[in-house]
């Protein structure tokens, strides 16, 4: 049992290492961060829609992931990473970096506010998703470009 767990951990670590070495350019890092946020939002969304049962631990972990991820997210837009690697980042990010950062910070603080009063049931998660979803949209409205 213990050996299996160790092997699993090693395998996961190995995966992590390859992911990092193959993906240390900012475009890839920020794409991975957004994917993390999306997965967390997906876990919350499943509960909000009633497809998954309410689970306080999952709600807490998902919200924490969103909060922590979005706080470092805007650090990965250095000059020179405007294009390439199928980035969907709009050039407007670099024109309005302060506003871009403020929008990310708003999702962070709204998430923290939800965490402070953890939603207690499906309806509560749904209401929280309403707040956070608006933050996602208000940033993607200006700062993400869809190429297809």
């Amino acid at each position: 049992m213990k050996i299996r767990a160790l092997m699993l951990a090693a395998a996961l670590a190995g995966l992590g290492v390859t992911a990092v070495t193959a993906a240390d350019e900012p475009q890839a890092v920020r794409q991975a961060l957004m994917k993390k946020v999306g997965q967390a939002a997906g876990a919350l969304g499943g509960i909000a829609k009633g497809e998954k049962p309410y689970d306080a631990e999952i709600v807490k972990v998902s919200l924490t992931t969103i909060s922590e991820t979005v706080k470092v997210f805007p650090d990965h837009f250095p000059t020179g990473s405007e294009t390439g690697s199928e980035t969907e980042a709009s050039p407007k990010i670099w024109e309005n970096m302060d506003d871009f950062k403020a929008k990310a910070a708003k999702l962070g603080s709204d998430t923290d506010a939800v965490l402070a009063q953890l939603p207690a049931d499906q309806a509560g998660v749904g209401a929280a998703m309403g707040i956070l979803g608006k933050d996602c949209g208000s940033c993607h409205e200006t700062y993400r470009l869809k190429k297809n």
Partner: protein
Amino acid sequence: MGRRIRKLVSGLVFVGLVGGAAFWWLTKPAPWPADHWEGLGEPDLVNGEKIFWAGGCVSCHAKRGSEGDARLVLAGGPPLKSPFGTFHAPNISPDETAGIGAWTLAEFGNAMTRGVGRNGEHLYPSFPYASYIRMAPKDVNDLWGYMKTLPKASDVAPGHELPFPYSMRLALGGWKLLFLTDTPRVAIDAADPKLTRGQYLVEGPGHCGECHTPRNALGGFEPGQWLAGAPNPEGEGRIPNITSGSKSIGGWSASDIASYLETGFTPEFDSVGGSMVEVQKNMAKLTAADREAIAAYLKAIPTL
């Protein structure tokens, strides 16, 4: 010889006059006959509000970045860039001088569904009357009743910034002759009330095709390309294909589409972006049944 030339010249002048008169006659602004807007009775303000959100008036006519109740102040919106020039959506608040508060239902209705302004002039199709032409007079009446309840604003929008020849309003009559039609964009099963409702909302008030369908050099829709996606008129990126052949939403179920319109989340829990953010905020205010009708229609139209 001289007589022959004179005859030729007068002949050409005659042809020119007849041609000009024919063009004018064929392309003059054409409001509905007066009785089209009569006998509609008291507007149903609840339905009027639904039509208001379906029509997306706020997205172009409220100031950029408006939130909450500020979205109901239709003072004139952000500039709308296009390959033909930059359009400025006017103040359509019920203010009697800066807005359209002094208009009659017929004046409002003819602007909405015939592209004819209050002074009998052609309006630019950046105002999507080529979609709104499909709207039922009752819905226009209800919408007009609801819009008169909104706050007044005193702002006056700048005029459109259009280079020649797009600056000629007269030429819009030619555009209308070519492209203004109230026939259905696609054939669907007319016996299914959900589909016909979806068709009405998408092709009429919702005016989805205005961005999601590609246009030719004259600004008319490319035939056979209904909702197949188009370049983003405002710059980089694309407005996606929303038929079942779409790379982005082709795999979505009807309930995925309805849920996206309600919450702004894709089935993968990515979020709505770009100019669709404004649209989704409006769609969230429709009834669930109307969002489902839109979704059913999108699943029923030809796959491109």
